[in-house]
């Protein structure tokens, strides 16, 4: 078993994902099945193989750092679940 219930809880915390006890159990089972299948990649020798992070060769792409106005900023703010005076409101983070 590559992954335990305890691991699932740890990973869920990293992902900021709330899970019910039932979901944790189910995910432990399913992730184990998927990871057991994925184990097959370990059998390939990739000692001298460089990793590919991007399929097409691209170098860093830069642009001028210029301010461009966006015409509908109010529409951006309007999508916030809780907004006040052009800002997004979140629960208090300091006591």
């Amino acid at each position, binding site marked *: 078993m590559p992954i335990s219930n305890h691991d*699932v809880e740890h990973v869920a915390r990293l*992902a900021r994902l709330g899970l019910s006890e039932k979901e944790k159990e189910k995910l432990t089972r399913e992730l184990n099945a998927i990871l057991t299948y994925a184990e097959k*990649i370990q059998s*390939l020798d*990739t000692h001298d193989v460089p990793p590919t992070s991007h399929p*097409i060769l691209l170098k860093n792409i830069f642009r001028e750092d210029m301010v461009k106005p966006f015409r509908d900023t109010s529409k951006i703010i309007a999508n916030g679940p809780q907004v006040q005076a052009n800002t997004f409101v979140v629960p208090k983070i300091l006591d």
Partner: protein
Amino acid sequence: MANELYSLTIHELHELLKNKKVSSQEIVNAVYGRIETVEKSVQAYLTLIKERALEKAREVDDHLVNAGILTPLTGIPLGLKDNLCTRGVKTTCASKILENYLPPYDATVVNKLEHAGAVILGKLNMDEFAMGSSCENSGFFPTRNPWNIETVPGGSSGGSAAAVAAGEAIATLGSDTGGSIRQPASFCGVVGMKPTYGRVSRYGLVAFASSLDQIGPLTQDVTDCAIMLNAICGYDPYDSTSINQPAPDYTKSLSGKLDEIKTVGVIQELLGDGIAPEIKKAVEDAVKVFEKLGAKIKMVSLPSFEYALACYYLIATAEASSNLARFDGVKFGHRSANSPDLLSMYYNTRREGFGPEVKRRIMLGTYALSAGYYDAYYLKAQKIRTLIKRDFDAAFHEVDLLISPTSPTVAFKIGEKSGDPLSMYLSDIATIPINLAGIPAISLPCGFAQGLPIGLQLIGNVLEEEKILKAAFAYEQATAWHQEKAKI
């Protein structure tokens, strides 16, 4: 449904519009009429914008059609997958977490279609955040296959494929991260293309796995596919990964012959175990058609294919877990009513907003990236990605084009695989390696089994969309599969 306006192709409707035999408003009304008749059983759309569409059609008729100023897409009604941002029109990714999201901007592809004079009909259902192969992972309802409503339309662009097959849109756009355009195209008997990574701007496509995602068309035939690709491709300063090279006129490559395509390679690994016998037979018959058209046929082996699926599910989920971190209840989308402090806001918002498959992939991706496992899973998968790319490079030294089935089976029953994630993932075995290598591929109809369509996949090297379209068109001319329509 023959000869009804909603059943005609883009190029057929364009002729009628050009010769003033029909107006855009008539076409748009005909398609909405069709939607009213069949949508109850297909359920392809999440949002319809009829008034806005008719308004646009009226404008197009008044200013463009009547004046004879037409692009090939002017006045043509199209549908969009619901992960493409549309200004002021809900874009949900079929997720509860984005249920009420109104993008403040249009995706570049949407902008391009609007400027070409196309009429947007609405937003199409999909697997939540494009994660799935059956459309059953939609956070709202599953879409059904117009060929048999007991079966799935494929996924994740299930709504986009079903709408084209049912006459509920003349053509649509989808997105393809591991087969999400080609597999539903195959299941629904339509043409679907994933272009080269970077050929089409991803600006305004809600990100799933950024190094794999690509937007592409789903259409009734190959000519329409070329027309749609012409309209959406090209460099975009808003997407730094878009390729800065001029695009050809893809309709020019549709000669009906194979021309410079001399050798076609058949992928050995994709005609073996795990491929249904009737699919194998249909692909072998298609190979004979290419032989008749003058191609030399060669069996090609791509040995690292065996590892592609595992490699994909580590890379795609790792990227997804990072991309989906933005859904935190702060700037858009759902926020849990139970948010007494910041951490519980994150936990509860994401628990309530994401469906089971999205949670599964966020978990798998976070695990593959986490301390102690990064080298064994994520880095290892990236190295295997290199091997897969090398396999394709070697193959394209020997052949001009590769051929395989699009999917190992025809459309499966609703509910058949939804309980077993791994068996669902296995249905993408033929499409996933293409995304890992960043190369283009098309799926087009090549037969039927149990009354359900079979898809043929043609794969080209980087930026060789023209070769693929040329071969696909020659095959289409030599066969009659694309003329079969779903009887719904």
